[in-house]
């Protein structure tokens, strides 16, 4: 709990919208990266979010083409396993949204630390010396504005009869983010929260992106989603609204490192240097609606006013409880066992 409060306090205290310092790259690294010409990123983050980041990166470094290989967290890990086993790992950068599993992939990564390493919380740095919090996000609620006239204000509001069979959800075992949400529900909202939710018969979707599509289409009325899924869609005119639940925002820190067999190691380094810099993190927050654990980083649109209660899982519990609790979750929701 001490750990969670520490990070929350850090972010809350330093949340300002001051102008981000411009990223200054090492010219030799830029030249080497430009010569390599490309960087391949394996990520479980939403494709559109990553494409936006790539676009911004390319306004600064147009000679480094970015290729994004996106899959739901668990599938991405299976893919990394298979490619590594056959000696065909094509990734330059690998991003893990499941920080509990990340540690066991350390051996695939090269040594790396950004110049501003000290500005990241020591607790996050403890995940692995080779992996850095490239992006962070919080789970909030999204609703279809045309179909929901009284949106929920908290997670607890979802138990109202208005939302029977109207919710979309994501299985706890689908990836790091959904596991964080399941853990938050049980630890913060109460032991019976899963059962309450299961009685609502939420429609399960394999990952965030189909959930977003489902709430936009009106297939479901309310869904839990990352801020960086909701805000860009809202800006683009999608008929959805965002709610920062009053009873807490479960946070996921997604860490990334450079593959030890990266075909483009310099380009990978340049990209990580940029995204981990103040400029990169501000781009992530202001452009893509994400969140950051960088000291002094800002919060996404609309979040300041809401008096956010950010909830970070303990990294120890995150790994230790995972298998047992996910199995229990599967039983409660009658999901795959």
């Amino acid at each position, binding site marked *: 709990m001490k750990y969670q409060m520490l990070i929350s306090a850090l972010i809350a205290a330093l949340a300002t919208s001051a102008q981000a310092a411009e990223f200054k790259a090492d010219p030799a690294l830029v030249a080497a990266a430009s010569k390599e010409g490309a960087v*391949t990123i*394996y990520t479980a983050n*939403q*494709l*559109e979010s990553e*494409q936006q980041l790539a676009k911004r990166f390319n306004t600064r470094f147009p000679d480094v*083409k970015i*290729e994004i*290989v*996106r*899959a*739901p*967290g*668990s*599938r991405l*890990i*299976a*893919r990394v*396993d*298979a*490619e*590594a*086993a*056959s*000696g*065909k790992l*094509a*990734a330059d950068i690998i991003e893990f949204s*499941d920080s509990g*599993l990340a540690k066991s992939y350390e051996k695939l990564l090269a040594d790396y630390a950004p110049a501003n390493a000290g500005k990241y919380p020591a607790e996050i740095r403890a995940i692995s010396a080779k992996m850095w919090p490239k992006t962070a996000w919080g789970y909030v609620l999204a609703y*279809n504005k*045309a179909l929901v006239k009284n949106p929920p204000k908290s997670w607890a509001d979802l138990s109202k009869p208005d939302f029977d069979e109207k919710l979309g959800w994501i299985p706890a*075992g689908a*990836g790091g983010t959904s596991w964080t949400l399941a853990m938050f529900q049980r630890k913060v909202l109460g032991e019976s929260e899963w059962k309450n939710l299961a009685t609502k018969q939420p*429609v*399960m*979707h*394999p*990952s*965030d*992106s*189909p*959930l*977003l*599509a*489902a709430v*936009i*289409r*009106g*297939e*479901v009325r309310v869904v839990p989603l990352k801020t960086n899924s909701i805000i860009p869609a809202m800006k683009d*005119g*999608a*008929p959805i609204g965002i709610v920062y639940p009053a009873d807490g925002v479960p946070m996921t820190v997604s860490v990334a490192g450079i593959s030890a067999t990266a075909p483009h190691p310099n380009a990978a380094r340049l990209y990580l240097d940029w995204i981990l810099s103040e400029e990169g993190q501000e781009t992530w927050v202001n452009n893509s609606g994400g969140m950051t654990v960088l000291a002094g980083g800002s919060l996404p649109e609309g979040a300041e006013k809401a008096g956010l209660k950010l909830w970070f899982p303990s990294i120890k519990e995150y790994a230790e409880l995972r298998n047992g609790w996910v199995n229990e979750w599967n039983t409660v929701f*009658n*999901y*795959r*066992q």
Partner: protein
Amino acid sequence: MSVAASRIEASAAARGRAISFRPLPWLWPLFLLLILGVLVIYPVARLVLGSLTDVNPMTAREALPPLTLEHYLDLAVNPTVRAATVNSLLACSFGALLSVVTGLLFAWIVVRTNTPMKGLIRSAGLMPLFIPPLVAGFAWSLLGSPETGLINVVLQAMGLPWKVNFYSLTGITVVFGVYYAPYVFMFTASALENMDPSLEEASEVSGSSVFQTMMRITIPLMAPAILSGGLLAFVIMLGVYGTPAILGTPANEPFLTTYLFSLLSWTPPLYNKAAAVSMLLVAVTALGIWLQQRALRGRSFVTVAGKSFRPKLIDLGRWRYFTLAFGLLYLFFVVVLPFAALLIVAFRKYMFVPDIGSLFDARQYSLGHFEALFANPLTMRSIWNSLIVGGAAAIFGGALAFAIAYTVQRTSVRLRTPIDYIATVPVAIPGLVIGVAYLWAWVGLPGGLYGTTAILAIAFIARFLPDTMKALSTSLIQIHRELEEASWICGLGLLTTIRKVVVPLTLPGLISGMTLLFVLSIRELGSSLFLYTSDSIIMSVLLLDFWEGGSIGVSAAFSVFQSALLFLIIGSVSWLTRRKR
């Protein structure tokens, strides 16, 4: 003498005259067996071994790890496996039943009635073959989702209280039924074409109505062909992943294929359990194939009598417009409506249709999804890879199928029977299972095949070997042995005879077999799901990625593009072959 007896004699005589394979009498069949061993036996053996052990294929290096039945025992007690098996059997059985009704009706309309525009109806009956199951599932999710499906929007606008829900077992069954009807259609149409009409004439002369004749004479005579087509449709449905993945997931209805996929998508992936589920799928499929083969054996007694008949056309009178309407309605529901939905979604900015008026609001439409599709560097790569993989599978798979079909049918070399048998084994292995088997077989070999476009082509060749051989065998059978014998007498060797006589004569069959392989490879999803990497990604997998990533508009744009590409390829090949003739 009965027809059957005369067939047996003819077959014995033909075998007596079969060309003895003088050069390399042992090496050639051993070479074919070696290829089949690599393509079929080794991956399947690895899969079986995987289901009986606890080893991880990614890291396993032990030659023979300890064996266990744990994964099979788990299948027996696991409620999700039970639900998935029941769902698969129910949807595929009723789907096959619907396919039989639809396919048979089509065959009857096209072959035996004087319905106008029969060419169009025949094409309509075959068109679903070229629509990938993923695209069909996707299109019907847009049309028939319970909350916002376009059909429901239209029903609501018309003030009707009805609602359709394709996110259900019934929805999947209906989609299966109509999209796999062509298999029944093909079987029953050829049976109807070859059927002796004298029995029907006798029935009509005795005063039976058209309907009575159909029920009492035609259908019982065709029972083996109907059963065979229906069972084939059943086993194909059983192996389909795309449709139940899209329509079954939101309803939390597991199928054997989707469950298998989820086992390998979990963290950590459950490889051994997946191998056991694969064996379950193989067992059910093999049972279906066995029944189908038995039914097919009976077919020759009634339909192939050694001479061809011109089937008598039934004058339907005014009812012929009713049968025409049925054909057009089918075309509308299977092709026009889904593609209209795909086009709407591909060009629509956001797939939220609050009312019918919004469908006609021009401001809602743009080329944005196509721009996003082609802005992604993986798109062009996947198109290129699909064409390469499809081309390689067609050329090498066509050559292999020809070599096997020729050896089995036209030579008397030893080991013909095991070669024939092994080459037919993939019929009983669903695509997804081939993918899992290849993953087991090749992933652990560093620097090997895994992750290349070659492994995808090899998996497709193995998967579709029986289909290609079947297409080729038909044309090989049609060439009289006298032509080859004449070539031998003129002193030409075996290879020259094949090159100068057999290949030119079977060329139309060879081209259509290769085209079939090319098309099947391009639309294949199941066997590639576990074999691709970012460098070797193909169109069907990328489409699934887009859909799973929630990019509905981009998925629709890609579906439209893929269908247009397939249409263009099939159209060009058939135009070229027609010109050549």
